[in-house]
């Protein structure tokens, strides 16, 4: 079970770094707490929903900003949605990017919006990457017969 121990430590350390570096915040912790025997894959399920939804939103945002005449209300609606979902799963940096994005929307600053979209996209793929790594570690632990440690 040494492997399990190692994996578990790896997992914990990785998790802590995510919180430390602001990729995840308190809300993600809440999600982890919500997971229980009746919903053992709750976090993965929710995060998957987030990934799916986010990619749609990012596409919509890109399209909206490419319009001849940009409909900032629509852009704002998308950003708002993105902000909501990212904050709900605790993707802090993505949420922060959305906040900045919203400001540019209000100002109808196209360049600012485009930049914010890039930034939000970047943060999104970063956190997606991190979470996928996290889930992989989980799987490894489970495959090795261990239990996934819970961060308190």
């Amino acid at each position, binding site marked *: 079970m040494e492997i399990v121990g190692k994996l578990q430590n790896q997992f914990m350390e990785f998790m802590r770094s995510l919180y430390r570096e602001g990729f995840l915040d308190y809300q993600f912790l809440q999600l982890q707490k919500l997971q229980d025997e009746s919903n053992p894959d709750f976090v993965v399920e929710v995060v998957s*929903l987030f990934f799916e939804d986010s990619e749609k939103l990012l596409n919509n945002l890109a399209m909206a900003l490419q319009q001849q005449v940009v409909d900032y209300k629509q852009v704002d609606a998308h950003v*708002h949605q993105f902000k*909501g*979902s990212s*904050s*709900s799963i605790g993707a802090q940096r993505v949420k922060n990017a959305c906040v900045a994005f919203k400001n540019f929307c209000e100002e109808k600053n196209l360049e600012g919006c485009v930049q914010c979209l890039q930034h939000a996209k970047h943060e999104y793929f970063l956190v997606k990457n991190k979470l996928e790594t996290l889930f992989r570690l989980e799987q490894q632990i489970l495959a090795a017969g261990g239990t996934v440690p819970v961060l308190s």
Partner: protein
Amino acid sequence: MNLGVGSVVKTMSGASCSVSWKSNDNNQFPAGLRVLVVDDDPTCLRILEKMLRNCHYEVTKSNRAEIALSLLRENRNGFDIVISDVHMPDMDGFKLLEHVGLEMDLPVIMMSADDSKDVVMKGVTHGACDYLIKPVRIEALKNIWQHVIRKKKHERKDKDFDQSATAEEGDRQQKPPEDLDYSSSANEGGNWKSSKRRKEEEDETEERDDSSSLKKPRVVWSVELHQQFVQAVNQLGIDKAVPKKILELMNVPGLTRENVASHLQKYRLYLRRLSGVSQHPSGLNNSFMGHPEATYGMSSFNGLELQALAATGQLPAQSLATLQAAALGRSATKGATISMPLVDQRNLFSFENPKLRFPEGQQQLNNSNKQINLLHGIPTTMEPKQLADLHQSSHSPSFVAMNMQGNSRVQQNNALLMHMSQQQQQPSRAQMLNETNNVSQVSRPPLSMSQQPLSSNGIPGAVLSRSGGIVANVRGPVYSPVSQASPMVDFSLNQNTELQNNSFPLVSSNSGMSTMTSKRMLQEEVNSDIKRSRGFPSGYNMFDELHQQKSQDWGLSSVGSTFDASHHSTIPGTLDISPSMLVQQGISSMKRNGQNGISPISDAFSSREESGNVNPMGGNLLTVKAEQLHDASYQSSFFPGQFGQDDLMSALLKQQESVGPVETEFGFDGYALDNLPV
């Protein structure tokens, strides 16, 4: 609400078919709270669902507001509270809030990632009982049951004779712990729950003494019924339509004058809303401020007759101002949309026991109108300030009276009435609609009230019942299309058993394959819809047996998740969507899109068809759809400037269903207004 009545029923008859949520085992409280969650964000929706489940609530989720609305309409007593996102693509959250308030009078919690003040204020003014900022924490969800209790409490208070006792009880019950400790909340809930139950029994006794029957069957104003009603009203003339005459003209067995009266009330309010379009958010703001501010706000609304009527005379701040404010927030939203800011103001100030039910605003309107008519020339103890306040606003303050239960209010009523008589008011509106309210209030004045005001109130009550028709805006013809939709004819009673028995006789021939049938099927079928059907007969403040519902809950939740994927169709056990609902939704969507004619409705219907294909009611759905389409087309032809009416009308119709119990609460049972000396 039915909570008191429901408890009464349970206590008196021993019927255990509908278990009051509050009567649950203390340890379980507030487990089993039936929550409907609406959010277009799948991530948030899933998270909320899980959190609510962890709070031991029964959760139904929907990612479409329209689906949620139809869910609510199909299961009037199936939910205790609604949580809705503000920004949704298919319907604005505030619109949903309005609908729910109007039609079901359930507490609604808004939530959004947007925490800007104006949006939160909008929630408040629309009557949301709470506003949560995303990301929502589970701690915030743990305490949402307080809104259900608070609402029920307020509604119960309306029935109380003893105002002071009620106030005390209210205060006591107003302090459900807001701490994060769930268990301690449950314990305290248990404590005050028992005291509340005692109070309920007291009330029950009082009510029994006064009214002939506590358990009034809930009248569902089907489209046909409403059409008959409108015909009767038009026949009598909107100004002369009195419940009694309307009732005679309608000649519907089993329909009482009180039913008609309260429906008339709503109808009047509806008409009022149709004619008074402008919205004055500032007025709504006032409802949350102190008296002087309210006055200020009121004066800014000069010229808004309708609104004035709605708001009527809630000038003097009551001692329970905050309570009223909360209630007002709700009632304001329910009774009147943003376009009726005055209502809010009035509500806030005029009465101790805010009428949280939908007709509150309407009731007040009616009340004030009635008062005006009745107290015309009657000397009253008017407070100068009130009068002054009244003068500031051009609308009729007379409205105040009805909801008032207290000396001050009586005085206000008098003052307002006097004032009203001076101003040109819409007498019709108040009368019928207020009738019930008036009666209830009049009949309940605390004994401590001085004789003069009491008699004044009494007279208005009596006279009001006699007086007037409905203000202008005769929309008779407009409603006919609405009536074509298959109605939800469901005379739901507080007891499940009664529902079974009573609903059929009252089903009009038109309903045919109506939702009534659907409901029957719902009730009889052992599928996910069963839970809802069980919820039908009980007061919507009551939970069914928790464990009994468990299986159904899951069914419900599965239905809820069904709705998530509704646009992907192939969903078994989808709830039947009544045509009237769809029509309404069509209207809503049409409203949203302006006057686009049928296309929005088609969209609505097409989406309905998708989700409704796998409907246990199969054949029903087809027929329903046909009717809907017919209605849709019919309605679209009315669009230019009229879709609002249809929308409101449907809302009124739906509203009526939930109003049934109100009459009971107001103690109209057996109260013969006709016998009151004029």
